[in-house]
């Protein structure tokens, strides 16, 4: 047969190379091949309704990604050869990279594992291909982030063992347990958690702060990674919305299940983003915008429009959204207070804001900063200048679900912790909020097994009986070098050397309590 047009159009090509790669099994029952597709109660009546927003085929995918990779690594090389780390705003900025490398890059890897698994579980070919591409994207992101930041490891401390630390350091159990929760759920909950709640609803609150933060602070390597990942992220976001609409359109019985997952994963995502909030408000020497402003734009406005759009499916905005919206004026201050006082056990440095940074915080948080936080920070600053840098010498109570210390306050009274407690089968459990307590009550068996770092230390499972041993031997943090106060640290000293500056008198007098 003579072929008139040798080149297939995009739609046909997609059809041949994706949907037509699947087949109806005859030797085995479909339920046996895809055994995880039904137990969550989600009903899919017609997989062919799955829309593929990008109609990307694997051959085109490899081609695009290879092009992006080439450009990206050319810039990494140039960055390293030109000693790009010397052009950043201030060495305090590098601490946000330490947080990213140990807290976020391992999540990209966890996402890769998650999509690789669920991509096997769907009987619809369109969903399988979408998950396969996203799995490869996530693996690429994990890898390129590590390459983007590896240059800093040659010049600053604390970037040497992120993967090891992700599995051990107390606060890294927050991002780790978030993904473990999603990956140990069924395939549809995983997609609702990661594709929809995280990638669609909340991802701008993770990537924009970190990547704009890199741009504002002269970090060419990381900002170039950001550009290289942008088209992938756009694809992930679109998938997130398609997933949720597809499931909701398939059967009305799916609506209450999806609603419960949206409630859960919005709350878990919101809690996780506390780390990003403090990074934006406290760890970036050149500020992009405040956390409260970011929350208003990316959640209250964009999220508001999204949930208005989903109303027609019978979906309402996430439960406790009002609590999250009110908390935008508090969480970054509460989180930074926490890391400041437990900095003997963190893989990065902390510090008190400079005077002009305090003024910026007062301006951005007119209702809350001066009233609830300024006195605390000025007290700590004074203590530090007098040689008594404050460290909390106990361990904190952790939330059984999000694993963050119980640091958050009541919506209507920011002077009171929103602690909650329940008894389940004779054991007591403690939570940071109603949101986390509800998640526990829905699936208690899942969370009674939580590996809570504080409790594990007390049980003797973390290599030593005292915090100093745990930090050094189990976390692989080099005490007094990787952790504690920034001023007077080796990183600080190196930065002054790079800039040809002598330590300021007040700084040289500041002692790190090592």
């Amino acid at each position: 047969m003579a072929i008139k047009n040798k080149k297939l159009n995009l739609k046909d090509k997609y059809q041949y190379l994706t949907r037509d790669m699947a087949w109806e099994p005859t030797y085995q029952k479909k339920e046996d091949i895809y055994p995880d597709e039904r137990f969550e109660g989600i009903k899919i009546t017609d997989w062919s309704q799955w829309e593929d927003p990008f109609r990307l085929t694997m051959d085109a995918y490899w081609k695009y990604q290879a092009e992006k990779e080439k450009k990206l690594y050319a810039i990494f090389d140039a960055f390293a050869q030109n000693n790009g780390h010397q052009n950043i705003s201030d060495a305090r900025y590098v601490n946000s990279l330490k947080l990213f490398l140990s807290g976020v890059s391992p999540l990209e890897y966890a996402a890769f594992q998650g999509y690789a698994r669920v991509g096997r579980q769907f009987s619809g070919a369109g969903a399988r291909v979408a998950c396969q591409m996203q799995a490869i994207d996530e693996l690429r992101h994990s890898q390129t982030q590590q390459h983007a930041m590896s240059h800093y490891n040659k010049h600053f401390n604390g970037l040497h063992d992120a993967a090891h630390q992700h599995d051990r350091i107390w606060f890294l159990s927050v991002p780790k347990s978030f993904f473990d929760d999603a990956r140990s759920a069924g395939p549809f909950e995983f997609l609702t958690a990661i594709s929809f709640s995280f990638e669609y609803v909340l991802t701008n609150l993770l990537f924009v702060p970190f990547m704009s933060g890199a741009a504002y602070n002269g970090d060419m390597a990381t900002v170039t990674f950001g550009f290289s990942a942008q088209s992938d992220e756009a694809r992930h976001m679109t998938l997130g919305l398609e997933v949720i609409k597809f499931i909701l359109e398939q059967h009305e019985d799916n609506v209450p299940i999806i609603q419960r997952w949206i409630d859960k994963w919005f709350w878990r995502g919101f809690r996780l983003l506390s780390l990003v909030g403090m990074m934006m408000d406290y760890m970036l020497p050149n500020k992009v915008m405040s956390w409260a402003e970011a929350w208003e734009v990316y959640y209250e406005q964009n999220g508001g429009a999204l949930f208005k759009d989903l109303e027609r499916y019978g979906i309402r905005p996430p439960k406790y959204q009002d609590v999250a919206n009110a908390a935008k004026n508090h969480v970054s201050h509460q989180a930074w207070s926490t890391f400041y006082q437990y900095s003997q056990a963190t893989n990065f440095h902390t510090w008190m804001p400079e005077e002009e940074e305090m003024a910026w915080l007062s301006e951005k948080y007119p209702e809350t900063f001066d009233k609830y936080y300024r006195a605390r920070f000025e007290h700590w600053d004074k203590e530090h200048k007098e040689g008594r840098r404050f460290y909390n010498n106990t361990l904190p109570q952790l939330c059984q679900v999000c694993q963050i210390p119980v640091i958050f306050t009541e919506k209507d009274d920011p002077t009171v912790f929103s602690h909650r407690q329940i008894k389940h089968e004779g054991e007591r459990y403690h939570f940071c909020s109603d949101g986390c307590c509800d998640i526990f009550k829905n699936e208690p068996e899942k969370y009674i097994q939580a590996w809570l770092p504080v409790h594990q230390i007390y049980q003797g499972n973390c290599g030593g009986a005292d915090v100093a041993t745990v930090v050094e031997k189990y976390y692989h943090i080099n005490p007094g070098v990787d952790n504690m106060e920034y001023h007077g640290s080796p990183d600080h000293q190196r930065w002054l050397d790079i800039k040809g500056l002598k330590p300021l008198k007040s700084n040289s007098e500041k002692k790190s309590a090592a």
Partner: protein
Amino acid sequence: MSVNAISEYHAEPKDRVENFNGMQLLYVYWPKHLMFCAPFALLVAPDMTFGAFVDELLKPAVAGHPDSEKADFLNAQWLLNDEAFTPDPAATLIDNGIDHKSMLTVTTPGLEGIQGSAS
């Protein structure tokens, strides 16, 4: 509700008292002193007296706070697991009804944190 799983799902609590080598966990919250970012999680011997707990664990834990010297914890207002509670300083923690993973809340009237900011 319970976990919706593909097969029978059984899990053990990770933090049973047996796992703490004879000790138990005790959480302590000092309201209006949020400079301490969260309630303390302390490892305590169940047969320690309440008085010893205040002197040997609580006081060192709060020593970094400017209000700590003014705080009279034995004559303060206590809650045990959110219920009113009058501790007996001479009795052990367990005899005071303080079991594993209990939460004590101690309010010291008149002390409102750094410059009255509840910090």
